[in-house]
């Protein structure tokens, strides 16, 4: 079904992605991620000694600070911090450095739709840059459902406001393995089909939601390829002075 999007993209097309790591010098790890006009900067400091008061000292602790572009910190920022914290806790290996705190600071540079997924991608790349041990990467994507029922990926802010509902989905990155395909399946599904995080806004039917999941999984494969190329390329540029 032909859908007219304002910037001429097709339904499943993502905006141009750009990611650069090691851009801040005092932070232990940093990354800047942009999807079209949405740009987010993430910095990682850690692991630092000690955990916060109510946290389990037998595991590493993750702390997220979200800074909006303008305005005071309110409930939406606290919600983003909580979602980011739980998502990153599930991808980091917390038993490697017990009784430590890793702080991730996210600064919104520009918000043009799909802000939370961009922030999750930026934070993940910053963690890679800092060398924090992780099980796998988190690949985040935004899917919108329109009133007439079609699904588009990676909306701009205008598109997000016009849509009936949207869902932010985070998947593990796709796996390229030398092992035979059957051995990496859980309950008959490949590992990268599992959802790490899902946040939805607006009303959609259950069938629409499962359709979004399918589209999101397909897009996460493309995003994983982009991440893989980006990480391999920068690791060969080892002559960059820190």
């Amino acid at each position, binding site marked *: 079904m032909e859908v007219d999007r304002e910037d001429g993209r097709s339904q499943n097309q993502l905006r141009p992605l750009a990611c650069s790591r090691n851009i801040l010098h005092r932070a232990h790890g940093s990354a800047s991620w942009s999807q079209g006009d949405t740009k987010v900067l993430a910095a990682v400091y850690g692991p630092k000694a000690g955990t916060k008061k109510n946290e389990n000292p037998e595991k590493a602790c993750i702390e997220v600070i979200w800074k909006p572009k303008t305005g005071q910190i309110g409930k939406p920022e606290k*919600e983003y911090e909580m*979602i980011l914290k*739980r998502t990153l806790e599930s991808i980091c290996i917390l038993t490697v450095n017990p009784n430590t705190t890793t702080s991730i600071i996210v600064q919104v540079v520009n918000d043009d739709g799909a802000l939370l997924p961009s922030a999750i991608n930026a934070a993940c790349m910053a963690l890679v840059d800092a060398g924090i041990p992780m099980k796998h990467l988190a690949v985040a994507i935004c899917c919108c459902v329109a009133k007439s029922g079609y699904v588009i990926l990676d909306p701009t802010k205008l598109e997000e406001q016009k849509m009936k509902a949207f869902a932010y989905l985070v998947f593990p990155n796709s796996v390229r393995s030398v092992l035979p395909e059957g051995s990496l399946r859980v309950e008959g599904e490949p590992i990268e*089909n599992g*959802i790490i995080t*899902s946040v939805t806004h607006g009303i*959609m039917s*259950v069938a*629409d939601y499962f359709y979004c999941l399918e589209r999101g999984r397909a897009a996460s494969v493309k995003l994983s390829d982009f991440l893989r190329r980006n990480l391999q390329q920068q690791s060969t540029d080892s002559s960059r002075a820190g």
Partner: protein
Amino acid sequence: MGLSNASGDLSTEVEVDAFRCLFPLRFYEKHLLESIRPDARPLGRARETTIALALAKIGSTTMLAAIKMEVMTPSLETPDEGCIAIDFHMPPICSPIVRPGRPAEAAPVVAKQLSDTILSSGMINLKELSLVSGKAAWMAYLDIYCLDADGALFDTALLSAVAAFSHLEIPVVSLNDDGKIVLSEEQGLSDREPVNKEKRKINLSSIPFSLTCVLHKNYILADPTAEEESIMDTIVTVVLDSSSQLVSLHKPGGTVLAYTSAIQDCIALTRQRVKELQKILEEAISGMEVD
């Protein structure tokens, strides 16, 4: 381990409590193998739910909701719509981890989730809150106080908010000579034409109901207590409205990845729960109207 004959023997009872504190995950896993939970609930069953006025209880989690109405001028973009402001408070009474100077981390998150769910579900038509188009409209302040936090905070908060809106009666007001809205005393006494004839209730369409589940390995536990939530960190909240549309599916991270089968099971459990909650809400409302 003596779990089956823990009733009589004091020494085995002490062992069970110690085991529960020292190895909580293994304690739970022993129960999950028998498809039961320590409070003798089957895995898919929620705790006992009661609604009295605007006090909702699911198991021990207790929430009180109160609505205050105020007249305000509507915004220019929506001159014939009122407004709802939702806030969720966790006073120190609810849990030992909440202290007066240190607000609970969960409070602003649940407040925002509630606000998003209630406004996006379309339960309340904001045009019903309008008084005089362009000049005056109702602003409803919904405050929810958590009195006892024992898991499934969002479910109980949503239930108490829905109960509060079901009981809400909009007072009779009239426009006085200065163009201000004042409360009318009684029908006959006032010589001014009242804006609305009688105290009316808000019409609620497509009420949202929710169920929180915890995922652990292959098990799905519905309606967790605070203890279960703290040990097993993967929490999924599904909100469905009365026509089975998905209002929200909230899964913030967690060690367990959710595959399609797990999500379908959670949605199926939520559908059952919606039917139970609809019955409980109807009984509570009809109980109130008898008074």
